[in-house]
C-alpha cells in the first residue's frame, strides 16, 4: 500500500504510538535519574519510527522478536505500558513478574515473543516462529528486530540463509543506528548498507529512512504482503539514530556533535507531526489532545508500577521448569 492512501485514523494512530514510546522512554530516563530503576536501561528514543512503522503493518496474531533495546517494540505491538513499566521497576505485576526487567519483556498474548539480551540471538528464534507458521499452515508473519551490531553475528548469516532457503514468512528488520554500543559501523563493516547482504541469501533487501515512519511502513507492508503469500523473507535496513547513549552509563561522547545535531533535526516524532499538520490531516489542537492523553496514560502506568509490590523473594525459585 502506498502511504498516501493510508486513512487518517491510521496516521494519527501511528503518531500516537510514536509519541507514547517517546514519552514513555523519557519517563523511564527520568526515573533512572532518580535511581528508581534497578540495573540498566537501553532507551528507544529516536528510533520510534522503526517499531511503529513495522508493527503498524502487522496483525495481533503476527509475531515479533525483540532486543535489549525493546521497550518501543513492545509498545508498538500493543503491550500494556502499565505492565511494561512495572517490569522495568522489577515489580510483581510486570510482564515477567520481575524476572526479566528492561531487557527481557515479553507478551505472548499479542505475539511479542520476548526480548533477548544476547545480541543476535533473537534472529534464529524468529525464523523458528516462521517455520512454526509454515508447519501449522497459518498465514501469520514474523517481524524480527535487531541492530547493526547483531548483523555481524553468526546467527544473522545462519538464520537468514535458513529463512531464505525455506521461504519463511519472516521480515528481518535491521535497525541501523550506526553504533554497536560505542563502535561506529565503519570500524566493523566494510559496507555502508547492511541491506546489501540480502543479495548473498537470494532475498530482497532494502534500505529505508528509519526516521520516516511512512517509509518504514511502506517497505514493511510490501514485505509482509509477500511473506503472507509465501514469497519468503525480506531484509529491511532502517537507518536511524538513538537520541541517548547506549545504556544508562553512556553519555555517548564518541558521537560527533554535528552528527547528533543533524539526526536530532530529523527527529521521527517531530517529522510525522509536521507532516500531519502540513497535509492538514489533523488540526494542531487534536495533536495536543493526543499528547495530553498519552501523558496521562504514562502517569497512570507509572503510578501503577510504583504502587505495585515487589515479588516475594522466594518467587526467585519459581518458573524454572514447567
Amino acid at each position, binding site marked *: 500500500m502506498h502511504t498516501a492512501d493510508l486513512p487518517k485514523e491510521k496516521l494519527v494512530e501511528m503518531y500516537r504510538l510514536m509519541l507514547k514510546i517517546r514519552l514513555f522512554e523519557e519517563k523511564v530516563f527520568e526515573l533512572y535519574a532518580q535511581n528508581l530503576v534497578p540495573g540498566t536501561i537501553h532507551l528507544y528514543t529516536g528510533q520510534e519510527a522503526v517499531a511503529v512503522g513495522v508493527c503498524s503493518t502487522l496483525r495481533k496474531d503476527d509475531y515479533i522478536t525483540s532486543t535489549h533495546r525493546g521497550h518501543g517494540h513492545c509498545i508498538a505491538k500493543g503491550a500494556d505500558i502499565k505492565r511494561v513499566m512495572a517490569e522495568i521497576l522489577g515489580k510483581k505485576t510486570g510482564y515477567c513478574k520481575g524476572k526479566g526487567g528492561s531487557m527481557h519483556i515479553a507478551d505472548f498474548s499479542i505475539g511479542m515473543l520476548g526480548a533477548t539480551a544476547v545480541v543476535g540471538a533473537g*534472529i534464529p528464534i*524468529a525464523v523458528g516462529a516462521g517455520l512454526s507458521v509454515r508447519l501449522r499452515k497459518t498465514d501469520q508473519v514474523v517481524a524480527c528486530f535487531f541492530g547493526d551490531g547483531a548483523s555481524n553475528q553468526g546467527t544473522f548469516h545462519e538464520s537468514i540463509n535458513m529463512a531464505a532457503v525455506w521461504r519463511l514468512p519472516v521480515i528481518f528488520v535491521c535497525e541501523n543506528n550506526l553504533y554497536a554500543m560505542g563502535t561506529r559501523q565503519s570500524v566493523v563493516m566494510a559496507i555502508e548498507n547492511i541491506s546489501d547482504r540480502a543479495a548473498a541469501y537470494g532475498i530482497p533487501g532494502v534500505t529505508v529512512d528509519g526516521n520516516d515512519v511512512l517509509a518504514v511502513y511502506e517497505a514493511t507492508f510490501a514485505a509482509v504482503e509477500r511473506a503472507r503469500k509465501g514469497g519468503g523473507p525480506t531484509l529491511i535496513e532502517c537507518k536511524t539514530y538513538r537520541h541517548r547513549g547506549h545504556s544508562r552509563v553512556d553519555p555517548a561522547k564518541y558521537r560527533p556533535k554535528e552528527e547528533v545535531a543533524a539526526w536530532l533535526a530529523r527527529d521521527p516524532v517531530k517529522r510525522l507531526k509536521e507532516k500531519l499538520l502540513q497535509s492538514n490531516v489533523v488540526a494542531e489542537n487534536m495533536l495536543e489532545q493526543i499528547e495530553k492523553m498519552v501523558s496521562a496514560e504514562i502517569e497512570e502506568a507509572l503510578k501503577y508500577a510504583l504502587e505495585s509490590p515487589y515479588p516475594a523473594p522466594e518467587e526467585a525459585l519459581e518458573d*524454572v521448569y514447567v
Partner: protein
Amino acid sequence: MRKITYREALREALREEMRRDPSVFLLGEDIGRYWGGAFKVTDGLAEEFGDERVRDTPISENAIIGVAVGAAITGMRPVAEIMFGDLAALAMDQIANQAAKIRYMFGGQAKAPLVVRTPFGAGVNIASHHSQSLEAWFMHVPGLHVAVPSTPYDAKGLLKAAIRGNNPVVFCEHKLLYPVEGEVPEGEYTIPFGVADVKREGEDVTVVATLYMVHKALKAAEKMADEGISVEVVDPRTLAPLDKKTIIGSVKKTGRLVVVSEDCKTAGVTAEIAAIAAEEAIDYLDAPIKRVAEPDTPIPFSPPLEQYVIPDEKAIIKAIKEVL
C-alpha cells in the same frame, strides 16, 4: 520379548510420537531422506513423514537450536539433532541462554518443549572434536532437563517422555550404544524423568553409572560376583532431574559408593553425584567415595591413547576393590 537396537528404539520413539502428534517435527543436518542421520537414527522417517517434518538443515548448529526454540514457543514440538555432542558448543547460546531461560525470564509466560538429541562418547577413534562426553555442561544449566539412556528400553521410553514434556531436554545418546540390542516391548510406554533404574541389585557396594558405562559397570559386577562381592548398579537415566532418592537409598543399603562416568572428572557428572552422596549420606558411608572418570584430557586419536583415557571395566573393578 522382542529385541531391537538402541538406534531402532530411538527411531521407533520418533515415529510413534510423530504419528501421534502433528506438532512433532525433526530438524538437523543430514537427517532426511538422503542420509537418514549420521548414525541412521532417522533413517526412513522422511519417507513416511515428508521433508517438511523431517527437515535437513544447513550446517548451522546455533540456528538449528534457535529455530527449534522459536518453533517450540509458538506451539510446535521440535526434535533437533546435533550430529555430534561436541558440536553443541556451537549452539550453546541457544541451548543455555535461550531455551533454558525463556520460561523463567518471561515469568512463566512461555514454554519451550524442544528436544536436542545428540551423541556423546569416545571409542571409535575420531579424536577430540567428535568424542567428548559433555553431559555435565547441561546439568549445570537450570531450566534444562538431561537424559542419559543406557539401553534400548530406556532410550525409547525416555525419548517419548522428552517429546511429550514441556521443558527443553538435552537428550544424550552414546555412539557405541546405537547397535546394542535390548528388550523393548511392542506396546506403548514412556519413562518419567527423574526416576533411576537399578540395573542390578546388590548388597556390598553401589556403582552409579550412566550411558555406555552402565554396561561396563554391569560386566564389572558380574566379575565381582564370581569373587563373592555383590554389586548394585544404579543407572540414574536422567541427570536433570536427578533421582537422588534412589542413589542415596542404595548408598544407605551398601555403605559404599563408586561413581562412573565417561566425562572428565573435574566438575563432572561423577563430581556432582559424589557431592550429593557426601552431603546427604556421609554417615552411612563405610569408605571414601571413589570416582571413575576421564582423566581431564581431550580425547586423543590413536587407539592405545584413546583406550587409556576411557574408563574401563578394570578401573571400575579396581575402584570397587578399593572401597571394600
